[in-house]
C-alpha cells in the first residue's frame, strides 16, 4: 500500500464528511432548483492515471465533460469532472430556470456543472474548516467518440489520484450526471493530514 492510499479509518472519516456534505448540498440545491435532488452514496477509491482514462472512456454515450479546478488552504486541491450523457441533459435550461433560447447547450452544461461542483465543495470545505476557490469551468473539447483520443493526449503529472464519484439525479427533469472529483498525489497527503486531525479530535 503506497503513501497515497487512505487507511481504513481515514477512508471512513472521509466517507462520513462527504455524506454530510452531500446531505447539505442536496438540500441547498433542492431549494435553489425547487425540485428534489438525489445524490447517490459516493464511491471513494484510488485510481492510476492510466486506469482513469479507461474508466472515463468506458462511460458509454458520454456527450460532454466539464472540468473545474478547485483549491483551498493547506494544499487541498483537485479537479472536478462532470460527465453528461445525451439522454440526461435535454432539460437543463428548464431545470436552471432559464428560457431555452437564453443560453446555448454548452452554457447550460457549464452553468449546471459549476453549481453542482461549488455547492458540494463549499459545504465539504466547511466540514474541514477550509474555504475553496474555483477557476472557471471549461467544456473539455471532444467530438463524439474522440474522448478517448483527447484523454490519451493529456499527460498527467501524477500517477495516483483519489477519485470520489458522486451521482446526481433530478428525476422531475430526467436529469442525471456524474461528478468525479480527482485529488492528485500531493493533495492526497494533505487531505490525509486533515483527516488524521479530525480523527484525533474524536
Amino acid at each position: 500500500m503506497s503513501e497515497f492510499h487512505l487507511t481504513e479509518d481515514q477512508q471512513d472519516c472521509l466517507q462520513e464528511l462527504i455524506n454530510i456534505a452531500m446531505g447539505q448540498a442536496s438540500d441547498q440545491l433542492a431549494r435553489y432548483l425547487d425540485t428534489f435532488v438525489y445524490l447517490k452514496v459516493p464511491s471513494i477509491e484510488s485510481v492510476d492515471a492510466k486506469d482513469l482514462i479507461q474508466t472515463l472512456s468506458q462511460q458509454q454515450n458520454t456527450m460532454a465533460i466539464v472540468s473545474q479546478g478547485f483549491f483551498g488552504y493547506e494544499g487541498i486541491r483537485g479537479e472536478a469532472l462532470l460527465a453528461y450523457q445525451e439522454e440526461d441533459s435535454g432539460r437543463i435550461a428548464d431545470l436552471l430556470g432559464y428560457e431555452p433560447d437564453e443560453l446555448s447547450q454548452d452554457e447550460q452544461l457549464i452553468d449546471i456543472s459549476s453549481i453542482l461542483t461549488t455547492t458540494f465543495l463549499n459545504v465539504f470545505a466547511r466540514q474541514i474548516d477550509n474555504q475553496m476557490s474555483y477557476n472557471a469551468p471549461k467544456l473539455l473539447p471532444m467530438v463524439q467518440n474522440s474522448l478517448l483520443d483527447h484523454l490519451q493526449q493529456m499527460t498527467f503529472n501524477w500517477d495516483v489520484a483519489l477519485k470520489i464519484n458522486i451521482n446526481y439525479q433530478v428525476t422531475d427533469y430526467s436529469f442525471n450526471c456524474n461528478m468525479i472529483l480527482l485529488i492528485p498525489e500531493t493533495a492526497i497527503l494533505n487531505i490525509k493530514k486533515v483527516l488524521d486531525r479530525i480523527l484525533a479530535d474524536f
Partner: protein
Amino acid sequence: MLDPNALTHLKSTGEPMLTEPMLKQINSQIANQLNTGVLVIDDEFNIVMWNRFLQVHTDKATANIIGQSIFTIFPELPERWLTRKLTSVLQLNSPSFCSWQQRHHLFELPHTRPITTDSEFMAQNCTFLPIETDCAQKHICILIEDVTDVCHYQGQLQKTLEELAQMSRIDGLTQIYNRRHWQESLAQEYAKSRRHNKKLSLIMLDLDHFKLLNDNYGHQCGDMVLTEISALVSSLLRVEDTFGRYGGEEFAIILPETHLAGAMELGQRICTSIATASLNYNGVAIKVTVSLGVAELSDDDSRYEELITQADLALYQAKGQGRNKVCSAAFVTSFPLA
C-alpha cells in the same frame, strides 16, 4: 484583498508591520491599478462600488453610478438571465462564471486593441463572487477580465486551422479535390451505399495525348488545360458528386445514387463538352479530348477499390477504341492489358 492577519505581526521594534489605514490604502491602490474590472453590487443589484478600470472604460463619473441599478447603468445586460445567475450566487453562496467562449461580452466596454483587432467590444471572462460583510445584506463582486487578445488569437487560430484543413483536401493546380480526399470520400460513399442499399457509380477520365500537348506547347499550356478541363467538368456536376484529380492527367468522379445509365449519360455529356470546348493558349486554339470509363457498384464488389478497377478497365477500353469516347464497365469484353 490581503490577509488581515498581517495586522497582528510586529516588527522587532514592537511597531506593527501593518496598520489598518495602511492596509486600506494598499487594498484600494491595488484595486485601482488592476487590469480587471471590479464591480460590487448589493442583493438588489444596485452598484455599491467599482474600481478605476471600470470608471475609465465606461467614462462615467462614480457619483452618477453609485446606488443605481446595474441594469440602469449597463442597459446592454441580459436582465432576466443575469438576474437568475446573480440569484444563484446569493442563494447558493457560491461563485458563478461567464466565459467569452459562451458570451463574447456582458458589458459593452471598449478595449485596448481597437486598431489591431476586429472586435467592437472587449471580450470578457466574468466571475461573480459572493461577498460577506458585517452588514446583514449580502453582496456580489463581479470581476471583469479583458480577454480580447485571447479571443482574437483563438479566432485567428481557428481560421488558420480551417484553411489548413481545406488546403489538405484541395489540389493546388486545379483547385478540385486531391487524390487523398477523393479516395476518403469514395470509401465513405461506398459504406453509405452498402448501408442504405443505394446505387453508386464512378467515372474515371483521362486527357488524350496529354504528353504530346506538353511537348508541343510546353508545360504551362498543359497546366492551363488541366485547370480549364477541371473547371468545365465541375460545372457539369451535381453538388453531391465528388470530383478529384486522381493522377497527373487522370480525374475521377464519384456519383452517389446514380445507376450506370445515368453515369454513362453524364460521361457522354462531359466527353462532348470537352471535345467542343474552345481552349486558347497565347492566341493559339487548343483542341483537347478525353476518354472516359464508367462503372457501377455491383453486388459482388466487396471493396470500393474494385469499383476503381472496373472504371479503369472501361477507361482502357475507351482508349483502345480510338479515344474521345465513353466506355462502360458492363461491356468490357476483354482484359485490355492482356
